[in-house]
Structures are given as structure tokens and as C-alpha cells.
């Protein structure tokens, strides 16, 4: 039997989380070391999966399948393809860097890391699940700890409100998606939740017309699609740093990914019917999200809304249903995940010392934190879609895909690039380079070595993909080809 590497990746975090709960609460260092060890194992394994995935062969690899509840056709069935392997890697990276930058967290780190790792298991699980039931199972595992993480460790001003809003939004979304999924289960008549089987079910056009929106939008809520996006900036802002990184970096991808895997891949006809409407909604995401980010006065809200804008591009790419668009969307999920994790890490580092996130009350950070400045600039370049960074590699094919659908949408969406450049440059100028306000003078210190490791690691990934895209795009392309096959070459 081959080594069950995906199962190890999925369950390492939760096992580590349970182990941590047995460590006495006052032994904080041991807790942190356990967390770091688990994160390194998960990261190492996901790097291994990423680089040993055979792109030439394509399809699902590292498959494991055990029957679980055979009477309902539920099995434990996992595997990765070119679309999900980068996302597994992304989760590993964000988990690792999240632990590094939360090292100094002093308020009940044991419980914090335990919840965070339960969440990580849920996320890994969704990305590798090939069984619809398992996918929902892990999806809920990923969403629930978020409530506690925000409500307990979040920003005091808004944490109860934000945690409640986020959880309700996401649960309602997932319940709606679940209804659609159950409809698929019963109507298919195959008596299985296995997605590889359901792909072949051949649902009628009428069925798909009715149920596609349930599944797609149910999940797309977590992807932040307009007009269901407004839980997300509130949630990002209220969450503690590592949770924001997870939340924007990985969790939003979960929504987009599930919308793709369950919505578009299982009901391709439905996707074709609703495609123009989804593109229009995501256009609003892209442009309006960027505009709202421009007018924020709170640093973290700027990043929060920028996520809405960039996730709009992901779903816009999916909605083009052509090769370029989906390719770009796949890369954008990874690129945005790393970028936004970097952004939230930077915001957290600044807030921890300055105790304010008001852009106008910050300034001069480059004098004391040169590396943070550099990392933010790298992230900013990615966000602006500057060539040479991963954002360009992702956005360019998305736009090409949109050109294939409608030139006008492509032209309108391009406005967001200039708006994004404006808000990024505004922050760089204000927060990092302008004169430091007097009340902050002398209170800001440079970041710790662990923080630096995390920032350098994230920045390097963004540059490597930007300079040599083939390291990722070829793999994503193989995943896209699989989806296009389901779409009948549309």
C-alpha cells in the first residue's frame, strides 16, 4: 500500500491540536513548538505532493479511498488534481507562516493554536475531498472554529458582531449548498456521494437550471461574491492576525474552490446558463471592491476590501468557462492567498506596535521596519498586477478569458487595476514613507526574526511565480483541462 500522504496532511493539524490540549496551559513554549512542528510536517508534505504531482499524466493523483458509510454511498475518498494541489500547498504555507507570526501571542496560545489547527484540517480536507459528503463535512469543520477564534481572540470593538455575522452568512450559504447537493444525490439515482461518479450522472438541463444557483452561490458566499460579500471585510478586520491570514488567504479560496468543484464541475450545463450573470456580479466585485478599498481610512479594511476585489477576479475567471480564464483563476487563488496572508501579517505587525490602524495616524514605518516595508511593497506589486510578480501571471489570463466572452467586461474590469494602484501607493506613501507621527516616535521596534522568516518566505513565493510562471501554470492547466472536458470543450 502506498503511503497515505494526503490523509497525513489532512489529519496532522487536528492531531497536533488535540495533543496541544493535553499540554498544561502555562507551558506555552511547548505548545508553540508542537504547533510549529505540525505546521512544518504539513508544509513539507504539501511541498512534496506539489512537486511530485505528475503533470504529464494529469487527473487525480495520490488517491485514497475507503468506504465509510456504504449504505448511503459515502466513502472517504481523497485525491488532488492540478487545481487543488497548489491550494494544498497554499494552506501549508499559510499555516506555517501563521504559526511563525503568532509566536508572541500570549493570550491562551494553547486553545488558539488548537482551534486554528482544527480549522486547518477542515481546509485541507475540502481541497482534497473527492466525496461530496466529505467535502461538506470538512467545510463545516473549517467554518465553525472561525467563530470562536474571532469571538475570543478578535479585536475588542467588533468581534462579537463580526463573528456572528460571518458565521451566520457562511452557515446559511452552506445550508443552501447542501440542499442542492442533496438534490443531486437523490436525483442522480446512483446512490453515491462520490464526485467522480456524480460527474458522469448527466443531470438534465432543467435540473441544472434549477439547482446550479443553490450550489454555486451557496459556496460563493464564502468566496465573497457580490452582493454576499459584506461579511468578509468585517470578519477580516475583527480577526486576530493569524486568523485573518487564514481567513482571507485560504478560507475564501475554499468557497471559490467548492463552487467550482461542486457547482461548475458537477453541473456544467447550469454553469453555462448562469455564466453571464456571474460575470456581471463579479465585475461589481472587482471594480466596486477596489473603489471601496480606496476610500477606507482603516488599514485593515483596505486589505479586506481588496480581497473582495481580487476574489471577484477568481470567480470571474471561473465564470468565463474557458481555458485562459480558469487557468488564471486557479493561479489567482494561490497568488492572492499568499499575497493577502502577507498583507494581513504586515497589518498585524504594525497594529501590534502602533495600536492603531488609522492610515492617517501611521507613518514612517520604513525607518524602523525596513523589511516589513519591502514585504508590503512586494505584496502591493502583486495586488496591482505588476508584471514580474505573481498577480500579473494570474490576472493576465483571466482578462484573456474575459476577452473571449465579452470585450466590454474586460475593459470595464481593467479600471480596477488603476484603482488598485492608487490605494496601494497611497498606503505605501502614507504608512511607510511619510513622517512618523510624534506620538509613535520611539514606540515602534523592528519585528522579530521569526516574523522576518515568515515575510521573506511569502514574498519569495510571489516573486518566484512572477519570474518563472511555468513552475505553477502548467500544473493548473492540467487541472483546467480536466474541467474543460466536463464542460464539453466549451
Amino acid at each position: 500500500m502506498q503511503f497515505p500522504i494526503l490523509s497525513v496532511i489532512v489529519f496532522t493539524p487536528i492531531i497536533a491540536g488535540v495533543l496541544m490540549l493535553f499540554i498544561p496551559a502555562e507551558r506555552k513554549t511547548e505548545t508553540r513548538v508542537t504547533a510549529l512542528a505540525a505546521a512544518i510536517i504539513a508544509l513539507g508534505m504539501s511541498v512534496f505532493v506539489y512537486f511530485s504531482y505528475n503533470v504529464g499524466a494529469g487527473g487525480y493523483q495520490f488517491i485514497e479511498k475507503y468506504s465509510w458509510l456504504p449504505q448511503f454511498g459515502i466513502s472517504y475518498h481523497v485525491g488532488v488534481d492540478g487545481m487543488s494541489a497548489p491550494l494544498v500547498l497554499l494552506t501549508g504555507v499559510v499555516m506555517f507562516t501563521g504559526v511563525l507570526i503568532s509566536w508572541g501571542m500570549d493570550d491562551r496560545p494553547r486553545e488558539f493554536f488548537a482551534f486554528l489547527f482544527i480549522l486547518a484540517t477542515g481546509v485541507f480536507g475540502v481541497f482534497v475531498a473527492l466525496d461530496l459528503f466529505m467535502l461538506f463535512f470538512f467545510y463545516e469543520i473549517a467554518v465553525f472554529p472561525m467563530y470562536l477564534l474571532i469571538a475570543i481572540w478578535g479585536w475588542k470593538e467588533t468581534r462579537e458582531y463580526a463573528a456572528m455575522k460571518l458565521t451566520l452568512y457562511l452557515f446559511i450559504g452552506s445550508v443552501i449548498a447542501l440542499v442542492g447537493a442533496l438534490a443531486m444525490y437523490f436525483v442522480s439515482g446512483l446512490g453515491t456521494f462520490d464526485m467522480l461518479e456524480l460527474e458522469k450522472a448527466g443531470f438534465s438541463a432543467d435540473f441544472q437550471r434549477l439547482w446550479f444557483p443553490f450550489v454555486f452561490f451557496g459556496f460563493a458566499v464564502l468566496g465573497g461574491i457580490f452582493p454576499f460579500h459584506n461579511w468578509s471585510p468585517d470578519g477580516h478586520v475583527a480577526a486576530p492576525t493569524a486568523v485573518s491570514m487564514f481567513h482571507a488567504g485560504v478560507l475564501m479560496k475554499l468557497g471559490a474552490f467548492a463552487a467550482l468543484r461542486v457547482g461548475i464541475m458537477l453541473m456544467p450545463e447550469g454553469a453555462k446558463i448562469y455564466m453571464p450573470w456571474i460575470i456581471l456580479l463579479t465585475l461589481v466585485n472587482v471594480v466596486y471592491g477596489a473603489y471601496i478599498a480606496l476610500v477606507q481610512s482603516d488599514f485593515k479594511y483596505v486589505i479586506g476590501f481588496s480581497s473582495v476585489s481580487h476574489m471577484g477576479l477568481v470567480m470571474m475567471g471561473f465564470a468565463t468557462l474557458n481555458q485562459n480564464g480558469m487557468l488564471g483563476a486557479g493561479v489567482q487563488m494561490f497568488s492572492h492567498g499568499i499575497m493577502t496572508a502577507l498583507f494581513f501579517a504586515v497589518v498585524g505587525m504594525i497594529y501590534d506596535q502602533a495600536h492603531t490602524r488609522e492610515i492617517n495616524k501611521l507613518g514612517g514605518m520604513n525607518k524602523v521596519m525596513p523589511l516589513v516595508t519591502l514585504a508590503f511593497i512586494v505584496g502591493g506589486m502583486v495586488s496591482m498586477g505588476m508584471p514580474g510578480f505573481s498577480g500579473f501571471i494570474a490576472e493576465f489570463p483571466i482578462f484573456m478569458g474575459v476577452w473571449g466572452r465579452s470585450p466590454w467586461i474586460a475593459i470595464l474590469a481593467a479600471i480596477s487595476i488603476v484603482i488598485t494602484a492608487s490605494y496601494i501607493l497611497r498606503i505605501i506613501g502614507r504608512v511607510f514613507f511619510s513622517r512618523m507621527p510624534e506620538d509613535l516616535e520611539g514606540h515602534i521596534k523592528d519585528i522579530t526574526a521569526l516574523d522576518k522568516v515568515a515575510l521573506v518566505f511569502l514574498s519569495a513565493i510571489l516573486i518566484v511565480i512572477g519570474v518563472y510562471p511555468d513552475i505553477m501554470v502548467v500544473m493548473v492547466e492540467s487541472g483546467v483541462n480536466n474541467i474543460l472536458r466536463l464542460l464539453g470543450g466549451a
Partner: protein
Amino acid sequence: MEIVSNYLLTFILFSPVFGALVLVLIPRDQVSLIRWLAFALSLIPLGLSIALWFNFQSDLPGFQFQEQATWYAPINSTYHVGVDGISLTMVLLTTLLTPLAILASFNITDRVKSYMILFLLLETGLLGVFLSLDLLVFFLFWEIGLVPMYFLINQWGSEKGERELWGGRKMPARNYASFKFIVYTMAGSLGLLLAIQMIGVVSGTFDLLRLYEIWPALNQPLFGIPIGTVKAIAFWAFAIAFAIKVPVWPFHTWLPDAHTEAPTAGSMILAGVLLKLGAYGFLRLVLPLYPEQAKAYAGALGFLAVMAIIFGAFAAYGQNDFKRLVAYSSVNHMGFVVLGIAAAAFAIDTNNAAIALEGAVLQMFNHGLSAAAMFFLVGVIYERTHTRDLNEYGGLFPLIPVYGGILIFTSMASLGLPGLNGFISEFLVVRGSWPILTLYTALAMIGLLFTGAYILKGIKMVLHGPLNEKWAGHISEINAREIVVIAPLLVLMLWIGIWPAWILNVINRAITMFFQGA
């Protein structure tokens, strides 16, 4: 050494990045080591491109030293580089000016390490534009060069000065200028980006050599719109992006601000090389990809060029800030480049067109030399007097005769005095354009008159007239390092003025082979 000669262009392109990585490892307080190392490292691309110049065979058509490697396979974009006579000239200009600019920045004391790293990265960005034969890679380098330049202006620009925005809010002038520079250029590139995406979708490739065949020959409607309309829109998307960079009137307003606020070496590269990117874009992309549209709109382009020449000269004459005067002179001189291009676009197959283009390319090279020299000289005097106001100078010739001599020499080259380089190229442009766009060329001659006026104004206000007493004893002569910076430029100005054949042959063969297939 075989590996170097096989991948010569890659070595030229990435040796500055390599240099930047070396600098990263040096501790930041080793200021003088960093300076000398940066200078030494920037000589590597210069040496390699001189080797390139001598190994280049100007009689062969097409691109030489081509390299192609996989880069972005799913959308058929490759790392494809190569040179012809046009890009070769520009590569030489870039690699020549960068070491000089670095040498000119030895007086920078603030964060020297970051400054030098940015400069070397900037060089790679510029070289990439000239070397790439893939539309997407071209765009990559086109945009990436903005980032170092933005930070050079924003962080090392002149510390004085404020700009009032709408609503009365004030911001430091260098922040205003750098923001205007990057947003202007990025917004201008937006159309270019969209047009490149569309070309990629339609043609399925970004390789320039293939696009030269596919794209102009395309004649079925796209997106339900007649192909003529689509191409016309795409033409203007390209043209505006490049016109902003050149800059052509009325897209030039970022330039005086950026130049005025940039550090001296930044201005040297900005005027010397960055402006050439726009003109190079016209030559490499617009004319070959849109021959029909270029012909149809050549008149409009020629009109804008004439406006740039005339208004540029007038505006330069009206300035009291020495650096702004030189900045507007760039608008004026680059106008001739665009005039030559417009004339050639109108009648691409004629002999006159070839002459006009030759003049345009040589003018790009010449303006690179003289503008860099002029900005450097402005920097030299600013460093001694801490003012750029022309009224504050006066009668400095007896105090600093060597500087005065160099300033007059450079000004004359810029003015187009026969025997110096500017004359050759402006003559060729005018000679080539006259039979094609007679009226515009005649109007441009009026502009030339005012060129003389503003150049003489600059010389007069700085060197002649009554001595402003406060400088007596307080101003020092140009020093040895500064002479080393400017000497190569002076030599080249004179050399091209007297014996231009060495460079004109290369340009001439490249133009006729690339544009006329002969």
C-alpha cells in the same frame, strides 16, 4: 566563455540583477564599497554590450543572438530575446548611461545601498524592453521599470518644494511628481495591456516574429465588430501608451514634474533612456503591427509631434528653473523623433521614409547623450548653489571656466550645431520628412528657431551677464569625478558629429531590412 557568447543577451539583461543581488549582501554602512562595487558591476553589461556591438553583423536581416526558452507555456508566451540594429543602438545607450549615472550618484548619502540596488534593477527593466521579442515579456519589462523609478523619485528626489492639490491639501513635491509619473504611465499602459490581451486571444501567440505575420494580415471581423475598427482602437491603445512615455504633446505633463523632482542620476536615465522606450515602442510594435492604421493616422501623429516641438521649445523658453528648462527641451527634441516616425509611417516604402527613420533612431541615441549630459550639468551646479532658479545665477563663467566650457559644448550639441551629433540626426529627420509631411516639417523648423532661443537663454543666465556676487568664492570648479562622468558623453557627441558612419551604417541597414524588407 562559450556559455557567455551563446547566451550573450541573457547575460547582458540579467547581469544588473546579479549585481543588485551582490549588493544585497554588503552591509549597509560600507558606503564607499557599495558605491564602487555598484559602479564596477554596472561596467559588466557595458563590456558585454560592446562585445555584442562588435560581434553583431549589420548586413544580416532579422534578429541576431536570439534565445528562446519556455516561460509561460499555457498561453504560448516564451522568453524570446534578440537584437537588430535598432535595439542594439538602444542597448548600447542604456549600458553606457547607467555606469555614468551611478558614478554621478556618488554624492548620494542617504540609504546608498537601496539606491544602488534600485538603479541596477532599473537597468534590467530598460534593457528588457529593448531585447524582448515576445509581446508579453515586452510588457513585463515595460511596466517593471516603473517601480524602481517611482521609488528613486519618491525617496531620493529633491527634498524641497510642495505642491498644492485640489482642496488646498499640500504634499511634498517629490511625492506628487512620483505619483503622477507612475499613475500616468500605468493608466496609459492600461490600453496597451488590454490590446495585448486581445491580440493574444485572437492570435494565440505572443511571439513578435509570428505576430508580425499574423496580426497585420488579419481581416475577418472580431467580436462582431469590423476588423478595421478593432485595429484602429488597438492602434490608438498602443500609440497613446507610447506617446505618454515619449512624451508627445499633450501627454507630456508628467515629465517636467518627474524630471524636476528626480535625483540627478534619475533624470539622466529618465531623459536618456526611459523616454526612448516610447519611441522604441512605435518602431518595434506600432509600425510593423499596424502599418495601415499608422499610415491613416500619420497626419495626426505628425501634428502632435509638431506641437511637441513648438510648445516644448516655447515652454522651455518660459522657464526660470534650469532643470525644468532642460526637461521641456526633452519634449522638444523627442518631438523630432516622433515627427520622423510619423513621416515614415505615411510612406513606409520610400527612400525618404528610411532617411526619416534613420534620423529618428539616431536622434534617440543623440538625445540620450545630450539630455543625460544636460541633466548632469544641472545637477552639478545645483549641488554647489542649492538653487535651480536661473535668476539666481549669472556671470559664473569666470568663476568656473571648465564647467562653462562643457555646458556650452553640451548646449550646442543639444541645439544642433553642425559638427556635433544633434545636427546629423535632426537634419536626417527633416530631410526625410520634408517631402512627405512638408507643412509639418516647415512648422517644426520654427520650433528649431526657438530651440536656439531657449538654449542660449540657459547659457546666458548661468554663465554670462553681471556676476551674482554671492557666488564669488563660494562656488567650486567641476571636479575630477564629474569630468569622468561627462567626458565619454562629450567624446561621443563630437565623434558622431564628425564621423557618424560607424553608427549610421548599423541603423541604416536595420531600418531598410526591418521596415522595407530589403
